[in-house]
């Protein structure tokens, strides 16, 4: 896929068509399809979305090396960002993870009993990791940020402490791909396996971008608040 830097006067449809992954961003901002020829800015205004934030996220989805400017970070609408992150957590937990689980369970049931059980347990372990990871963000970090905005500092929490405790949720997902591609016995539900793999690759890519948003937008923003 082409790595584009988008501008706010582009048609939203053009953004989505030139990088299909950006389509995942829309529902997290509440944007519905059917926006006709409207520009990114028009659609954002219509929905009351911070256009600048929307652009940064689209650009990060399109080019992982993209860096928002300090000015953009300082002036972003943090409530929109937090609600975007909550919406993507919800999407992973309520949609992607159960969807993949459903298909993995079908695969597991067709496998020899031991292999099926190992697969299910491994996935369960992964799910718990993801749940804890998101809970830590939503219950510790987000309230801390909202506190900072009101001028409340904390002695026992900071973005640095958060980053040190922020677990990696990418490894197990990537391991799951390797296990399905290489190590589970072949000849069983090939089609189902391939479709699961596509889901896993897509989820991994999306979570990778999600992490970029936290690292390149949220963390620098919180640092600015802390040093204020």
């Amino acid at each position, binding site marked *: 896929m082409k790595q584009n830097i988008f501008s706010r006067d582009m048609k939203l449809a053009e953004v989505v068509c030139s990088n299909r992954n950006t389509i995942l961003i829309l529902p997290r901002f509440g944007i519905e399809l059917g926006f006709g020829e409207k520009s990114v800015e028009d659609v954002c205004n219509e929905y009351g979305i911070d256009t600048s934030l929307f652009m940064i996220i689209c650009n990060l989805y399109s080019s992982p090396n993209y860096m928002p400017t300090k000015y953009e970070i300082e002036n972003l609408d943090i409530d929109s960002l937090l609600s975007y992150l909550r919406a993507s957590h919800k999407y992973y937990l309520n949609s992607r993870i159960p969807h993949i689980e459903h298909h993995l369970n079908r695969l597991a049931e067709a496998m020899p009993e*031991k*292999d099926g059980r*190992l*697969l299910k347990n*491994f996935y369960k*372990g992964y799910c718990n990791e993801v749940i804890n990871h998101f809970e830590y963000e939503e219950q510790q970090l987000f309230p801390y940020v909202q506190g900072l905005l009101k001028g409340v500092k904390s002695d026992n929490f900071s973005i640095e402490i958060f980053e040190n405790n922020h677990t990696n949720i990418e*490894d*197990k997902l*990537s*391991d*799951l791909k*390797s*296990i399905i591609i*290489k*190590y*589970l016995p072949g000849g069983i539900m090939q089609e189902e396996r391939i479709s699961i793999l596509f889901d896993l690759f897509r989820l991994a890519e999306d979570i990778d971008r999600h992490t970029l948003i936290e690292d390149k937008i949220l963390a620098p923003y919180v640092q600015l608040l802390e040093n204020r």
Partner: protein
Amino acid sequence: MKKRKVVLGEESQIVALGFSKVMEGSSLFEVVDDAGRIDKLQQKIVTCKPDVVVVNPTMEGVVKGDTITTLFEETPVVALAYSYIEQSILKQFRGTIDINDSRQEIENKLKEALAKESTKEEKNNYELSDRETDVLIAVARGMQNKEIADSLNISPHTVITHRKNIVAKTGIKSVAGLTVYALINNLISESDVM
């Protein structure tokens, strides 16, 4: 020190002569011969026994499909490129000399190609070695690096090297994933990890 021998494979006489001329002043390398065709080049490699071959990847027969030919056998091969060549092909050479490189730069690239030669690892060694399997089993059983080192009588540093190789070969990074690997492949039984 004796000069290292270079054999050049290049279809263009102008470029071949130019390359030899540039390398004339080198105290490290000597272009002992050159050839304009792959079969001639192959002969020269047999007769001259060069330390390194420099060849233009566009010479007919050097690259077949997407892979560089095995005709050069064990001799390290460096590409001499002055037209667009796919990265995936260039990667298979021990280095790439650009047409605009100075003698110094060419010497450095040739030195590097020879250095890679001496530390060359076994090729296509994708399967886990016996020692790596031992370490994998220990990791899957939940042992820490220090314990593994003690039980296998190797240094903790070696354990880390084995673990890196295991990750590189299997693509599995998490302990839980390695445990699944060990169980699927019957390296351990479920009672070992309960």
